[in-house]
């Protein structure tokens, strides 16, 4: 009977795992990415408003919807920020 060795795989450190897989985005990167998306939506809203005032764009509803999109994503960003700040404060209050 052949006894095979138990292969548990790399247990030491994160380096072998990290090198095998695609480096996963850090929390900070994700945050930066979503803030960038909010900025993009706001830029789009700005552009649409400018176009409307220059009478290039005749569709007022498209402008309004761009503004709403930017507004909603901004609200979401603020909520995420509030959560992060409250989590940070929670950690800072921790008794050592």
């Amino acid at each position, binding site marked *: 009977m052949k006894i095979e060795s138990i292969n548990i795989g790399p247990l030491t450190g994160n380096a072998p795992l990290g090198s095998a897989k695609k480096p996963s985005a850090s929390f900070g990167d994700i945050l930066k990415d979503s803030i960038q998306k909010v900025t993009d939506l706001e830029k789009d809203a700005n552009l649409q408003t400018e176009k409307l005032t220059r009478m290039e764009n005749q*569709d007022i*509803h*498209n402008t309004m*919807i761009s503004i*709403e*999109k930017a*507004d*909603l*994503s901004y*609200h*979401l960003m603020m*909520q995420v920020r509030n959560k992060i700040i409250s989590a940070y404060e929670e950690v800072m209050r921790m008794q050592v």
Partner: protein
Amino acid sequence: MGILNILRVGASALNAQRLRMETIATNIANVQSTKTDDGGPYVKKETTFVPTDLSDSKVFSSMLSEKVEGVKVGEIRNSDKPFEKVYDPGHPDADGEGYVTYPNVNLLSEMADMMVATRAYEANVNVVNTTKEMYLKALDIGK
């Protein structure tokens, strides 16, 4: 379908209704145009709506299941309703027998169409507003 995609669907419907309103405006404006460049009187324009896929075709997931179906104006075609002939020998566009061919635009039905377009536009604005309310309510979770 994400919340922002619902807004896109609403926007597509608003665009379509605006285009329909444009054709109605053209029809009403030309209700007495008895002569066009093509010779005959003005022909009533009709719009048809078709569903359309709004999703970004480059996103792979959109090809699988997440279809964002909005609406767009399929075609603006000439109506084939009969023209109206009115006896008016003094009219510059009257034919040999003194009859003037008026466009096949019925002002009453145009007004009715206009009300439908307005209401449809309103309904889609409500969709956008309600979607926004839902989103903001969702952000209230845990407050």
